[in-house]
């Protein structure tokens, strides 16, 4: 069974989703337990997969679906799964985030989407299945199919919400379809030039037949990247994101916001490093200059737009755009000429380590903040920042977790936010890109302003009833500390603990990432 873990981690939640949709027709109460079981199984299998990867000699596990293995048949005849250290970690993150979000959703689903719990949970599971599949697959077309699975589920999950959410979902659907279609078209251009669909196979043919200067490959690169940038909401293409994420039902927001953009960033990294290869991306194209500048603009624009928001979830959505800027910029940071001198990828690109680390830590941070904000909105009855007054007294645990998330966002040690910024900034110094380092520091300052404003409201702001009341009422208020139910608190506390844990284990994670980059560089040469 152990050697099948890479596929079971997707098939078990898939079966859970089908059973959820079937049994839920009769027994609605079964849906949530089934969902949780599905995600626990996914978490278990992804941990096993990761252990296998780290134990293997070349730090990757390859699984051939249908048994069409590359040793007997031409590569790419069947579909292939390839788990390395980075996507192994990402799989664990996806399963864990989905598990916590599923537990958290208990209070919300029956409230926000009455009568449709089975469908909701089935879609929820399938969204995670799609995301895990996108991470793990090594086939360019299989990636498209799984991308559509995750996109269609997220359109539906968003559109289930309020009336405002359906308009946001429609805009998201149009943009998302354009992005996915561009990706498909780019794969088509690559296919006609190389005749392969396997990512490693495409790379080998591109290098082996010297296709790096071909216009068709260049167009394929442009199409795939524009498509992926639409999906990951890179700044000028990010207009769909704030509406879709802030209007979605609470539980939907808690899984889509942490995972969707992060997995798309990973897809971008994977296409850069595996399909086209560092030789093409960094040496042949030399886009690093303009790309880092666009990332700087994305970071600054996201931060400034977040400053202007009065709605808490909308503010977080704009912060996600800034965070995407961090990751995309980090991926393109490279000391000039490093690849040409034949140095290994790791020694010239601390920015890439920072990007990988930030994918993981940002998923945790966004999860923590969205969970905390969801819990706060329940207590405050509105999502406006002014209405958060006096929440510290009402629900101290929720607010403590929110503070941890906020500190991670600002980048205070020992939370993970500090270390990811540390790697990104040192990558920027290595590459001599001061503007990127400056943008990171400015964005941290803006985050500090934003979050301290909220914390100030919540800590010092007085509850409306307290204003006109005297001692008697105040005591009643203190006694009436109404914390959220455990189904909300447990995932929230776990998420905030994870923030600190990811920070404390930064050396190990960065070690895995550098090993991953070394294998990538070696795969490019061999």
């Amino acid at each position: 069974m152990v050697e099948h873990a890479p596929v079971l981690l997707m098939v078990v939640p898939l079966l859970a989703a089908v059973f959820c949709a079937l049994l839920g027709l009769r027994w609605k109460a079964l849906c949530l337990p089934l969902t949780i079981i599905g995600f626990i199984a996914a978490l278990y299998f992804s941990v096993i997969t990761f252990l296998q990867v780290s134990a293997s000699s070349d730090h990757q596990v390859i699984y051939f679906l249908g048994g069409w293995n590359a040793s007997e048949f031409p590569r790419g005849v069947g579909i292939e799964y390839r788990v390395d250290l980075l996507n192994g970690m990402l799989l664990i993150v996806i399963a864990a985030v989905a598990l916590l979000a599923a537990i958290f959703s208990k209070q919300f689903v029956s409230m926000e989407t009455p009568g449709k719990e089975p469908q909701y949970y089935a879609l929820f599971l399938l969204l995670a299945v799609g995301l895990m599949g996108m991470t793990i697959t090594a086939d360019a077309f299989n990636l498209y199919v799984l991308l559509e699975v995750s996109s269609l589920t997220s359109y539906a999950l968003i559109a289930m919400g309020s009336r405002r959410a359906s308009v946001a979902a429609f805009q998201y659907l149009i943009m998302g379809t354009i992005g996915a279609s561009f990706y498909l078209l780019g794969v088509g251009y690559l296919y006609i030039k190389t005749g392969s669909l396997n990512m490693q196979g495409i790379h080998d043919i591109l290098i082996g037949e010297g296709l790096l200067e071909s216009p068709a490959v260049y167009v394929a690169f442009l199409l795939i990247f524009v498509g992926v940038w639409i999906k990951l909401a890179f700044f000028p293409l990010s207009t769909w994101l704030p509406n879709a994420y802030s209007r979605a039902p609470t539980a939907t927001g808690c899984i889509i916001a942490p995972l969707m953009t992060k997995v798309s960033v990973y897809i971008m990294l994977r296409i850069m490093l595996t399909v086209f290869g560092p030789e093409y991306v960094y040496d042949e194209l030399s886009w690093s200059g303009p790309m880092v500048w666009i990332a700087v603009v994305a970071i600054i624009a996201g931060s400034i737009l977040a400053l202007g928001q009065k709605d808490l979830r909308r503010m977080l959505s704009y912060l996600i755009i800034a965070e995407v800027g961090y990751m995309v910029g980090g991926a393109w940071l490279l000391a000039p000429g490093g690849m040409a001198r034949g140095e290994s990828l790791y020694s010239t690109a601390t920015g890439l380590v920072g990007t990988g680390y930030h994918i993981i830590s940002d998923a945790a941070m966004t999860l923590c903040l969205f969970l905390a904000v969801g819990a706060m909105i329940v207590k405050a009855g509105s999502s406006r920042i002014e209405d958060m007054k006096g929440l510290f007294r009402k629900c101290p645990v929720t607010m403590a977790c929110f503070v941890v998330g906020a500190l991670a966002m600002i980048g205070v040690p020992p939370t993970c936010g500090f270390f990811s910024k540390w790697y990104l900034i040192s990558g920027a110094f290595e590459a001599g890109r001061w503007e990127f380092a400056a943008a990171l520091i400015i964005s941290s300052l803006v985050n500090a302003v934003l979050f301290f404003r909220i914390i100030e409201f919540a800590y010092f702001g007085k509850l409306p009833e307290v204003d006109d009341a005297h001692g008697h009422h105040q005591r009643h208020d203190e006694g009436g500390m109404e914390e959220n139910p455990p189904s909300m608190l447990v995932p929230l506390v776990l998420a905030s603990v994870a923030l600190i844990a990811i920070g404390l284990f930064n050396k190990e994670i960065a070690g895995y990432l550098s090993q991953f980059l070394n294998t990538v560089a070696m795969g490019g040469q061999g």
Partner: protein
Amino acid sequence: MEEFIQSRFNYWIYVILMMIGLWGMISKNNLIKKLIGMSIFQTAIILFYVSVAVKSETANIPILPHHGHDYSPKIAFAHAVSDDHENGGHDDHAGHQAHPVGPKIPDPDGYANPLPHVLMLTAIVVGVATLGLALAITQKIYREYGTLEEDQLLEKVRADDHG
């Protein structure tokens, strides 16, 4: 000249259809018009893939004629398969060409490339799933806002946000 047109015409038309679809998706005001544009856009991509698979002069559709003796799997390939097993499983499929049963092995130039067809079957299915979901969202928007024109819709949404 004629050859040049023949070698490029499919691709030109696919680009034009794709531009029409994209333009419909971005600039049309009515939501259903946007979806028609989306379908045209996706179909154009499928046209591209199918054009890639064509082998114009020689090729047949990618289905082996199973009535003739030559390609009857039982008769012709029992031979090839058994020989193959002697050599140790599937190791050596490329060697079939030099095999004595040569004419019974399908000639790769004689059939259209099946792989893009397979991919496009999946793409068509994804397209109709997206279209159905989009139409459902359109109906929900109409139920909530009473209009399908984007400009009126955005005005009402703005009123919602401020009110």
